[in-house]
């Protein structure tokens, strides 16, 4: 995820202090991985240098000075460009699992066992996500759904591969 673009986007609704930005980010997008203050301030310095934000005011406080940042016209254009650019779909062509299955077949180990164990591990994670989804709000549900659909896709691959193990074995040991 582009932290810079996300912070910029959060600034579109109005100027904010670094601390407020971190809080808004964590609340909406951080979930398991909240931002460090250092990340916020280094990102804001970069955005400032690139003219995408400007300092809207400075408050003297107990700790370090509290800068209030505002997005610039160039910043709004940058967010717009980022949102309009499609993300590159992940091709998923480098699969460790595929390598493990082929290696197992080549070395005459039990490839079905590898697939079954992996399925169980995937389902374990899916149970955790399903539970979190059940207890969470709509944002949590969307995040968990994204993960669940990807895990489900892996599982479908596991099933298909399990069904094709015989043919795969013939192909790899040839």
């Amino acid at each position, binding site marked *: 995820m582009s932290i810079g673009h996300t912070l910029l986007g959060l600034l579109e609704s109005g100027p904010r202090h670094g601390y407020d930005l971190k809080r808004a980010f964590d609340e909406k997008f951080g979930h398991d991985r909240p931002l460090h203050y250092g990340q916020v301030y280094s990102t804001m310095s970069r955005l400032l240098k690139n003219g995408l934000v400007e300092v809207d005011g400075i408050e003297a406080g107990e700790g370090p000075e509290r800068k209030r940042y505002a997005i610039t016209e160039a910043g709004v254009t940058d967010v717009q460009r980022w949102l309009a650019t499609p993300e590159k779909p992940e091709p998923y062509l480098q699969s460790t699992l595929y390598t493990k299955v082929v290696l197992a077949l080549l070395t005459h180990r039990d490839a079905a066992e590898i697939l079954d*164990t992996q399925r169980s591990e995937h389902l374990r994670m899916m149970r955790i996500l399903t539970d979190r989804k059940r207890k969470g709000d709509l944002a949590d549900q969307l995040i968990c759904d994204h993960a669940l659909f990807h895990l*489900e896709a892996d599982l479908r691959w596991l099933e298909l591969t399990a069904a094709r193990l015989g043919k795969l074995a013939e192909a790899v040991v040839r």
Partner: protein
Amino acid sequence: MTPAGALLAAHDLRKAYGPTNALDGAEFSIHPGEVVAVMGPSGSGKSTLLHCLAGIVPPDSGSILYNGHEMATMSDARRSALRRSEFGFVFQFGQLVPELTCVENVALPLRLNGTSRKEAERTALSWMERLEVDGLRGKRPGEISGGQGQRVAVARALVTNPRVLFADEPTGALDSLNGERVMELLTEAARSANAAVVLVTHEARVAAYSDREIVVRDGKSRDMERIV
């Protein structure tokens, strides 16, 4: 060997249909209040396992113990009584009687057990509330959606307070959102009633509502929890 405390346990189940071995030494066990997913590809023997466990189809050999009693030695009448009062069933579709209203459908198992109409419909409504379909009480199955129909079917399966709920692809005919809601309500209701659920599914997202899974392949079963 029966796992300690199992409510329903099967050992070395075998069942052939002609030359096809639908079950080839399958094992299974479930404890009260547990949700166990039975997974596996089409034709692997999942549904045959469920039918044998529920006493719908007799296995060719092997043992099935329900509450410590061997199912094979029970009389037909006793097995029928079990299916009527201690087992509940939810299938993929086509379960509700089209001529009856939803509340009459849910009350039906109680009526067949001799409960008065008033009492049966009162209990039926309380289950319909838990499945969030009490508003459909006067509708007939033809007037409600697939997701609603499946929730009514779950209410009907649970209305007798069964000790085991057998669910065979219960969300197979539903879209993702409706399927998930049915699974949430089904597992919540079953857990609160301490009913065990045998959940046959080929969908991982449905299996994720279970406590553990058993994988059936070529008529053989693997209990993944005991392997990993």
